[in-house]
């Protein structure tokens, strides 16, 4: 679990984040959403320690990350995996070497065991027969998957994804979203995702934090977001007429007024139990 307490960050005279607090739970996909310049990337960089907040605290399982000394921070960072917007793969290394890098650096495993682990995570992200390729030879989606494999190779407790779908087609975006969700549940990771992809919000957003001009404007789940009355949030999410119509349709589905695959089980009494429904708490 990661707790963000009253974080404030300024660059010169400009306040980029103002008094933001949130709790990111384990085994969940926690999404930070907001328009460009709303401070979501800065917030994430504060959380991982790339920026030092001017005020407030970041707690990793109750340990205050912001006030730790460099050595203790390094120990926490070993439990963090991060997927960067541009994948941030090492250009001079092959896919296999990229994924093996954290193992080379932080374990004394024999090469055979390291290779097994590398192939295991590459299979997990559905990337086979790409071990010998260099990043320049990969597509955008493949790069993201390699970066995801590298991020999880050491079994991290925390996974940060900065705009994982940027530059990807909708279909590949869905694949990446699905992978992030599955890995989060499978390894019980506290996952934090920066995004403004509405598909991601609706598909994987267990907890959503909406940032507006550096402030926390709204928080809730992907179910609650449909019924939110927050005007700024609605303006941001349902920016087009198409999305507004989709929202109306989704509301009708959620309230059971029209059936679809999402609520048929609920209506027929085969509720899987993991769907939040309005009026049921």
């Amino acid at each position, binding site marked *: 679990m990661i707790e963000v307490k009253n974080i404030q960050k300024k660059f010169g005279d400009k306040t980029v984040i103002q008094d933001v607090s949130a709790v990111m739970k384990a085994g969940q996909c926690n999404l930070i959403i907001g328009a460009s310049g709303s401070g979501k990337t800065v917030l994430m960089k504060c959380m991982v320690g790339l920026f030092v907040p001017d005020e407030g605290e970041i707690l990793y399982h109750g340990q205050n990350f912001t006030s730790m000394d460099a050595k203790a*921070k*390094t120990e926490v*960072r070993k439990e963090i995996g*991060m997927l960067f*917007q541009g994948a941030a*793969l090492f*250009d001079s290394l092959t896919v296999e070497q990229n994924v093996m890098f954290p193992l080379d650096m*932080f374990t004394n495993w024999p090469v055979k065991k390291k290779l097994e682990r590398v192939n295991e995570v590459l299979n997990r992200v559905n990337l086979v027969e790409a071990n010998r390729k260099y990043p320049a030879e990969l597509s955008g989606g493949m790069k993201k998957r390699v970066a995801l494999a590298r991020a999880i190779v050491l079994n991290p407790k925390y996974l940060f994804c900065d705009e994982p779908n940027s530059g990807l087609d909708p279909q590949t975006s869905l694949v990446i979203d699905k992978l992030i969700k599955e890995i989060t549940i499978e390894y019980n990771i506290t996952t934090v995702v920066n995004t403004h992809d509405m598909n991601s919000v609706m598909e994987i957003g267990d907890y959503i934090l909406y940032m507006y001009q550096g402030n926390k404007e709204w928080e809730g789940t992907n179910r609650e977001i449909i019924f939110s009355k927050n005007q700024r949030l609605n303006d941001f999410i349902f920016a087009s007429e198409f999305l507004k119509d989709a929202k109306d349709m989704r509301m009708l589905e959620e309230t059971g007024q029209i059936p679809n695959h999402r609520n048929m089980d609920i209506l027929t009494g085969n509720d899987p139990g993991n769907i939040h429904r309005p009026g049921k708490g």
Partner: protein
Amino acid sequence: MTIFSDIGRYLLMIKGMFSKPENGKMYWKEFMHQCAEIGVGSLGIVAIISVFIGAVSTIQTAYQLVSPLIPPSTIAQIVRDTVILEFAPTLVCIVLAGVAGSRIASELGNMRVSEQIDALEIMGINTKGYLIMPKIAAALLMIPLLVIIAMVLGIWGGRLAGAMANILSGSVYDRGLLENFVPYNVIFALIKSYVFAFIISSVPAFFGYFVQGGALEIGRASTKAVVVSCIAILFADYVLSALLL
């Protein structure tokens, strides 16, 4: 004010390099890689420049020494001392500032812009220690070796040119090399090469490591790194000559 803050950041960067390596083997591997890049990668250009500098020195010295009272072996003495004292350490290091320095700046700049340095930081790796320290250590090892090679090849180039142009025979040249030889000159040249090696590796590393922006800024940082390194080398050359000669 910018120059003072840059010097401060440069010193903090140097201080930040010194920490216990996360994995000694990986640091060693990176050090060896940098030795190959800086040393072997620059050997060709250093060899070519050295031979021609020695050759040109012999011809130009002979052109200026027209008096019959001066023995031809003096040409060899002048070429030897010029190559050892100035051409091998200073000129070669200025060329290396362009070859190795720009490579270091652009490599680190590219890693910064593409968030590779951030990725290493997130993993809990001291990026200054892992990325900059091996470069400086490799430069401190390889550049003095390159300078020694440059001295040998420069003097040999002078001998070759002297014989080919019928200025002086090989035996006269060899005799001249042994006359009035001061071993301290070699030590002085090596001291200079160590100082220049530190400049060539650390200054471009600073400009590359702290680059902000995109591809254009990487190019600018690379150019600036070479220019500042060359100026620093010339300044250090003057200071060391004034202090040690």
